């Protein structure tokens, strides 16, 4: 396998999209290629593209499952716009993905699946490989099914088992094209199917068959190489946003010396956080799958009262159901983190698609004046730090925090340099001391304005709290008019005080740029990609990306005021821009919004920003 007849072309970055029927194993194929990419030392990010249905009818466009990986020699911030290479296991995969590939892209398809029946199911009137519609692409029609059968015929396996290995044939072709070693994939199978050597053998044979087929195939004249990226030294793992979120809370609980309690109810696309936390019983995590969203958050409030780092995880509709209980936590002034993995709304909306449309709900979606801290994670790996920071702020300031992530972050993955808990910021919850004669339920720390946490079981601190308005200090139920005003202002001031404890807004680019791009949360990767690229092209542009939403960083006004033009870009109909207009009405803003359940593309942003710069 070592001698190569073809020429090796060096590339800066590549986007590959694996697509097939739901049952074709495209997610595994993508994951194995990702592992190989990590081994090659590239920076990368991935994104799965599942159908909303579990198993839509075979061969239909609705049943296509995809996996995209973007890897490079340079820093990679997103899973990529359009693909350079598409692997299409059937006509439906081709049809569903034509809009996601570049002009001139390489398309590798299973020629055996391109038959009348397949065209019909995919909704093609005729063979798309013969009607001229693919003229601008480099088409590799490989008889993948036939060659897979051929490769394992001596193993006498049943047809179903054989067909399950054809994804390895496709992977073998791609591995050859990108000069990858097969050893890593072989090892995966040897480990995973230890008890079934026949399956191991079949997959290894088919992978090698795909590789060898590509090597001898004249259509592939060149192979490609992407040099390792200049990543910081350290130990790395590939992580999705949901998994990173779960890990961030585990780390925070350990650092704070508290038990971690999750009360949650399964909901797309947040469920993996619950699943991941149920796995980590070895670290003492208590994950409780409640009967509904309300019981999820309310059990967490109970656990918080009892002294746990308590969290609840959900997505949009679930956040609606939790609203009343968030108000209770605001009134009780207990630590609690609510993770909202945003999806397309309203109502059930687009459960498997991403959106940034719950910002207003996070800020204001409760009865009464009920301020909470709002944070928004900026990348899959940042979900670890965002969860950690949310826990820290909630515990130290004794107030609920809403952490916004989104479907793209949740399902997308990127490389994560593993931190050591010892190096993370300290977390010091304001626990009341046993038998403290001065303890009163609503006596406050003069600096942060938080009350103190008196945990059941602690001697001399018995007290009652609840949803009725509390008298300042004593915490007794109070309907006094002036007290209510005072307490409302105190709750607001407590959250505003947090601005003293969060980092200032950092701008990417110079202070005198002609255009300031403003964004928040999960769009950071694409915004940075565009702005970095345009700065390299000599454009006068800068990026201010927000991770702290409530309160805003203290220098927000100064940063916004420094620029002549501001454009606020969001995957919604313009919520952060409204929030900025409320806070800083003196500035003029333009906006760019996309509400299609799809991420921003580099090209569309670049075009928009150039229009503004050239105007």
């Amino acid at each position, binding site marked *: 396998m070592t001698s190569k007849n073809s020429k090796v072309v060096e590339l800066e970055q590549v986007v590959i999209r694996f697509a097939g029927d739901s049952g074709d194993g495209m997610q595994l194929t993508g994951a194995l290629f990702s592992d190989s990419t990590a081994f090659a030392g590239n920076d990368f990010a991935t994104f799965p593209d599942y159908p909303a249905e579990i198993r839509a009818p075979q061969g239909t466009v609705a049943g296509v499952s995809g996996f995209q990986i973007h890897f490079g020699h340079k820093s990679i911030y997103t899973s990529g716009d359009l693909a350079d290479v598409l692997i299409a296991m059937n006509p439906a995969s081709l049809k569903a993905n034509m809009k996601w590939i570049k002009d001139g892209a390489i398309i590798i398809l299973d020629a055996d699946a391109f038959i009348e029946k397949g065209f019909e199911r995919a909704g093609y009137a005729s063979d798309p490989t013969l009607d001229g519609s693919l003229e601008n692409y480099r088409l590799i029609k490989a008889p993948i099914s036939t060659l897979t059968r051929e490769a394992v015929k001596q193993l006498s396996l049943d047809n179903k088992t054989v067909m399950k290995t054809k994804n390895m044939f496709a992977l073998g072709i791609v591995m050859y094209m990108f000069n990858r070693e097969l050893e890593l994939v072989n090892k995966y199978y040897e480990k995973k199917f230890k008890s079934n050597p026949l399956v191991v053998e079949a997959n290894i044979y088919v992978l090698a068959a795909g590789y060898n087929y590509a090597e001898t195939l004249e259509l592939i004249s060149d192979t490609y190489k992407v040099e390792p990226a200049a990543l910081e030294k350290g130990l790395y793992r590939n992580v999705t946003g949901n998994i990173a979120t779960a890990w961030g809370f585990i780390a925070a609980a*350990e650092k704070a010396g508290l038990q971690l309690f999750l009360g949650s109810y399964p909901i797309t696309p947040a469920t993996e956080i619950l699943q991941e936390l149920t796995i980590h019983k*070895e670290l003492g995590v208590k994950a409780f799958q409640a009967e509904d969203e309300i*019981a999820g958050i309310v059990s967490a409030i109970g656990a918080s009262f009892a002294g746990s780092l308590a969290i609840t995880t959900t997505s949009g509709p679930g956040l609606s159901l939790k609203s009343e209980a968030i108000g209770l936590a605001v009134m009780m002034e207990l630590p609690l983190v609510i993770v909202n993995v945003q999806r397309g709304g309203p109502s059930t909306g687009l459960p498997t698609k991403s959106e940034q449309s719950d910002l207003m709900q996070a800020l204001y979606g409760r009865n009464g004046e009920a301020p909470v801290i709002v944070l928004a994670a900026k990348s899959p790996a940042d979900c670890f730090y965002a969860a950690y920071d949310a826990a820290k702020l909630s515990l130290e300031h004794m107030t609920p925090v809403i952490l916004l992530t989104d479907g793209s972050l949740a399902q997308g993955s990127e490389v994560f340099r593993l931190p050591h808990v010892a190096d993370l910021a300290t977390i010091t919850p304001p626990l009341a001391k046993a038998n403290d004669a001065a303890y009163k339920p609503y006596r406050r720390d003069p600096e942060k304005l938080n009350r103190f946490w008196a945990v059941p079981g602690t001697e001399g601190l018995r007290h009652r709290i609840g949803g009725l308005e509390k008298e300042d200090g004593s915490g007794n139920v109070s309907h006094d008019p002036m007290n209510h005003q005072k307490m409302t202002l105190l709750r607001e001031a407590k959250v505003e005080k947090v601005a003293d404890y969060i980092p200032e807004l950092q701008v990417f680019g110079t202070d005198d740029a002609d255009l300031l791009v403003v964004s928040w949360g999960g769009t950071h990767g694409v915004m940075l990609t565009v702005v970095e690229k345009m700065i390299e092209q000599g454009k006068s542009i800068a990026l201010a990306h927000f991770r702290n939403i409530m309160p805003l960083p203290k220098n927000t006004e100064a940063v916004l005021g420094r620029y002549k033009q501001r454009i606020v870009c969001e995957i919604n109909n313009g919520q952060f821009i409204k929030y900025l207009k409320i806070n800083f009405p003196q500035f003029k803003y333009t906006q760019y919004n996309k509400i299609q359940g799809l991420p921003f593309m580099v090209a569309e942003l670049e075009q928009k920003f150039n229009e503004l710069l050239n105007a």
Partner: protein
Amino acid sequence: MENQTIDTGLLQLTKEDFSSDQMVKWCPGCGDHAILHAVEGVFPKLGVAKEDFVVVSGIGCSSRFPYYMNTYGMHGIHGRAAALATGVKLSNPKLSVWMITGDGDCMAIGGNHFIHTIRRNIDINILLFNNKIYGLTKGQYSPTTPRGTKTKTSPQGTFERPFNPGELVIGAQGNFFARGLDTNPKQLAVIFEEAARHKGTSVVEVMQNCVIFYNKAHELITARETRDDYQLHLVHGKPLIFGKNNDKGIVLKGTRLELVTIGENGITEKDLLVHDQFEQDPGVHVMIARMAPPQFPVAFGIIRSVAAETFEKVMENTIMEAKANSTVKNTDEMLRSANTWTID
């Protein structure tokens, strides 16, 4: 039956240890006062440190209860007390967790949490104050209001079928259900103590009178002239016998209960159904819980008390086992336990 072993010798607590300094604001004559006194009387007997009690509630007249107990307490939101209690207990299983709720709080808006908490068998003591009306909102029918009752939202009489709390609890696989009466605080104290010692979710229905919005809801059961004929006090291992002259009883005939008079038709005490509160099969317990006037008396005392594994115990054990069997001892090790690569 599995009882908690409690060493009462170490703690010298009195009723006063649990009286809070807050003014009790229930209406004069409300049945809640008697229940509060009964609970205050029971807590010192349980051998639990006063810091280890947590009393939680939802919304309603009964839900003001935590403010009147000098313990750790939470007055939550409507219907969600069971979820609050669940979080407290799972977070720290050493705590003695009490949930105070009413017929509306627990069986209407909070019905879901109520049945699921029972199903899981989390060790929480639920005191359900059943006055068959919405008191705090001033007189609308509740899930236990008898059919046909005229209330502010049923001017022609309700046409809903009411819940029988015992039937609901046992239907949700409840292992402990008892019934008491606000006018019989002595019996309440005995029941509350049993409920506290039962491991798992215990539900005590207290038939309680709202003097303002549904006064005399339980009159047939409580009035001096009729009460002996409509109250049946259960004792484990004893026949179901009642009546002014102690001559009425309950027999199990085929698949249903029947009321009989001792001495008539050759019936003797030996023919009566003998109460077995520890019977695993819920069939007879449901029948006893369902007994109601005018055909039957209402059963008071412990109807069902069956030992079963608690949720929090299994959770704790699973965690202990996972800790013992894993080589991963902290976050750093967990993060580095699989699929890593080095950049150098």
